């Protein structure tokens, strides 16, 4: 098992290192999420409730994640890098786990800027919202990475990813918005944790079939 974890750590390190050197995903995500918040300010009427803004925060996070997921396999797309990875003597699910971890890191960095920006533009955030976002990141990236790998195999890559991903993400939005706006957020956090566990297990188990014949 230590060999498995070492593979995951190495593959994650590769993705983070690529991002640190090329810097082509995270700055775009940051810019996108802040622009989206500004757009939402003008989309909401002046007397809109605080609750509506919190719903918008979840929309912003979901679409930022979608933008990041579209780029997740960018490096692998070029020069059949994915085939190279598949030839490496490691478990295929390690590739999925490493990609998921790297995507969580990128999305987390974007949120580190987006959440203070939201607090500045709209309203202060409570701990339930932050916990909900942390849990949602796991689910979004776990399912999203698998779906992005699926979309990669198709002709209509960029077009297909949102179509495949959004119906799967509806429960995340329900759990997240519930955690932010309901009086008893704990129930919704529990639901998000359940979603994460179920979909992480099925994605982990099925990734091999997505990338091999």
């Amino acid at each position, binding site marked *: 098992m230590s060999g498995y974890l070492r593979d995951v750590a190495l593959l994650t390190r590769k993705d983070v290192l690529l991002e640190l050197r090329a810097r082509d995903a995270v700055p775009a995500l940051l810019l996108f999420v802040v622009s989206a918040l500004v757009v939402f300010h003008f989309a909401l009427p002046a007397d809109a409730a605080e609750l509506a803004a919190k719903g918008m925060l979840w929309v912003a996070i979901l679409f930022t994640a979608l933008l990041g997921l579209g780029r997740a396999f960018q490096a692998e797309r070029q020069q059949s890098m994915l085939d190279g990875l598949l030839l490496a003597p490691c478990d295929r699910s390690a590739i999925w786990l490493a990609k998921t971890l790297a995507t969580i890191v990128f999305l987390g960095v974007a949120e580190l800027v987006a959440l203070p920006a939201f607090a500045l533009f709209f309203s202060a955030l409570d701990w339930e919202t932050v916990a909900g976002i942390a849990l949602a990141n796991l689910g979004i990236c776990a*399912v999203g990475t698998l779906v992005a790998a699926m979309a990669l195999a198709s002709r209509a890559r960029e077009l*297909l990813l949102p179509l*495949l991903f959004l119906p799967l993400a509806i429960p995340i939005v*329900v759990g997240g918005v519930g955690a932010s706006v309901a009086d008893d957020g704990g129930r919704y956090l529990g639901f998000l944790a359940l979603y994460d566990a179920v979909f992480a297990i*099925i994605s982990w188990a099925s990734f091999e079939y997505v990338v091999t014949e």
Partner: protein
Amino acid sequence: MWSRNNAVPALAAAAGLLVCASIALIFFWIPEDADQGISQKIFYFHVPIALTAYACFGWGALKAFLHLWRRPPGADLESYVAIHQGVIFGALTLITGSIWARASWGVWWAWSSEQLVLFLVLFLFYSAYFMLRFSVEPGPARANLCAVYALFGVVLIPISFLAIRLANDFIHPTVFTSQGPQMAGSMFFTFCVAWAAMLTLAAALYHIELAGKRLDVSLRELRERLA
């Protein structure tokens, strides 16, 4: 002579008979609902169609699982056809549900109706399944992708159902509880006949479509061999 070729017409005939029988029972035998009048009769179409759609999605996922596990030839096609039938019955569920909502609540769409919202989510999900299937070259890779996505579908059904239950708590503070009609014996019998009719109909359509698709595949293989 009883051969495999007779099975599909027999199934289709059984489906036709059962559908006629259920229509006769629904409109001429069971009494009209005291509250909702004639509009309540759509219950005997809407619910059996919805349950049949679930059965189709479940069957498709089962075939998908078999494909990934044992790789029997044809499991991919069977999974696809089952999901195709599921989407057709799912669309019918949305239509009949919408008509029922109009008749009893005066609106064509009600977010408080958990069944309708769930079917909308599933309809979107499985429509994306077709988008995926038709934008990948046919072959073993496509069969794998579709099988994995179909498996995600059956996991999504209970999770979405739970999510919609939870969402109703903050979107509609007073949860709409559909008590449904108190099922008398005659109503339950009619409901069972209607459900059996829909399941047989789905099975007949499944086998007919499957036969057509298999014919397509063998025709293509023959053509490739000739070319």
